[in-house]
């Protein structure tokens, strides 16, 4: 049987028969892979633990008629335990893989794989508050899919910002001249946070307060839902109450000190 090998992140799994699972993976080079993992639900399975959601693997597959078959899987990122060990991180990761699955229904390029891998690793290491990691992931994943939102200049006319009217259908903030009546209005702090999440400016993002994060996550949810047509089932379950990790700045300084380089 012909085989292929690739790095991939497990998005989700479904039980199949007595002891097997169907595993849906997002891979670096082969797009989305649906494969059968045989015997993995038996305790003592050699690679069952590596084929759980949020795990990154280097795997070999047999090409099957309808579904491929996992022949081997080596772990390249065991993020499951750290993520499942913290409820806010678990719910954020679940929403991320659900979004990844939906956004790659037709086309799953390497960029989607790399973005998800980075976001799961960041969650597992608790680099940032999990709610911010999720929102940043969603904005960037939508951008890769071709729906990059604008939080500065008007998404319709290009008129330089700031603008306060936010309209998902028009692609972000829009100038008052084109804003439909009743459009959601965003304050400067929420717009700054959204811009920081989109560009990956973690120092600015983590400087935000809880109220601003709430407003921004509402905007991200609305924008995501508009583009995915159907709502993400995980999103209402996301727990944003987790412990707040130290700000990036502090950690960057600590890491620099640990490596002996000047800050």
């Amino acid at each position: 049987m012909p085989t292929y090998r690739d790095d991939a992140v497990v998005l989700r799994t479904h039980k199949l028969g007595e002891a097997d699972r169907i595993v849906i993976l997002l891979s670096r080079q082969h797009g989305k892979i649906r494969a059968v993992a045989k015997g993995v639900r038996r305790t003592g399975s050699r690679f069952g633990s590596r084929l759980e959601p949020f795990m990154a693997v280097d795997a070999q597959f047999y090409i099957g008629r309808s579904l491929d078959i996992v022949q081997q899987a080596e772990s390249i990122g065991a993020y499951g335990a750290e993520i499942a060990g913290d409820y806010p991180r678990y719910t954020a990761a679940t929403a991320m893989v659900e979004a990844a699955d939906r956004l790659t229904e037709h086309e799953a390029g390497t960029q989607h794989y790399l973005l998800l891998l980075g976001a799961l690793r960041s969650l597992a290491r608790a680099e940032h508050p999990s709610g911010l990691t999720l929102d940043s992931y969603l904005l960037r994943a939508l951008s890769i899919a071709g729906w990059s939102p604008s939080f500065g200049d008007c998404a319709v006319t290009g008129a330089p910002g700031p603008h306060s009217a936010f309209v998902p259908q028009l692609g972000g903030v829009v100038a008052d001249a084109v804003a439909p009546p009743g459009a959601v209005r965003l304050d400067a702090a929420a717009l700054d946070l959204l811009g920081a999440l989109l560009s990956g400016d973690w120092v600015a993002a983590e400087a935000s307060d809880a109220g601003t994060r709430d407003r921004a996550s509402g905007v991200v949810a609305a924008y995501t839902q508009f583009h995915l047509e159907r709502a993400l089932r995980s999103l209402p379950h996301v727990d944003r109450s987790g412990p707040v990790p130290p700000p990036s700045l502090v950690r960057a300084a600590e890491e620099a000190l640990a490596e002996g380089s000047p800050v």
Partner: protein
Amino acid sequence: MYEGIVQDLIDELGRLPGIGPKSAQRIAFHILQTESFDTTRLARILTEVREKVRFCRICGNVSEEETCAICRDPRRDTSLICIVEEAKDVVAIERTREFRGVYHVLGGAISPIDGIGPDQLRIAQLLQRLADGSVTEVIIATDPNLEGEATATYLSRLLQQPGLRVTRLASGLPVGGDLEYADEVTLGRAFEGRRLVD
């Protein structure tokens, strides 16, 4: 495709979990061709099981009465509750004969992607059972997979209360196996759960 009722039977069997089209066909022909096969009895049990079996008012286990045999048994220690995902887990733990407490069946694990959060499980009922302070220990025995772990994480955070010991079933190496065959996650977990040898 077969005609009429034979195909109907294959279709119905094929809708059961774990039974594919080939198995459904095999079972259907077994029923058709085996003279000693008592179809009346099977049909009666299928009807009765839906009529008679309900879920225990206290623990959520399957039961033919309002409360299950375990909850009714006066020898069971009601200060000790073992939390499991499904009724079949109760059966598995009962087989060990190690546990003398009572159970609480959640009805699944937290899986947001399937729309299952804490509110969709029997967690409120669990909190009710813990309210009077007579329970001193809960043992979380959810599955050792991702959803099971996340559910355990959620419960251990929720159940932080004075006078209540919260434990998690140890997970580790399968008995009868070789250490070298254990995968890194299982082996790591076994290290985490190591205990003092006395």
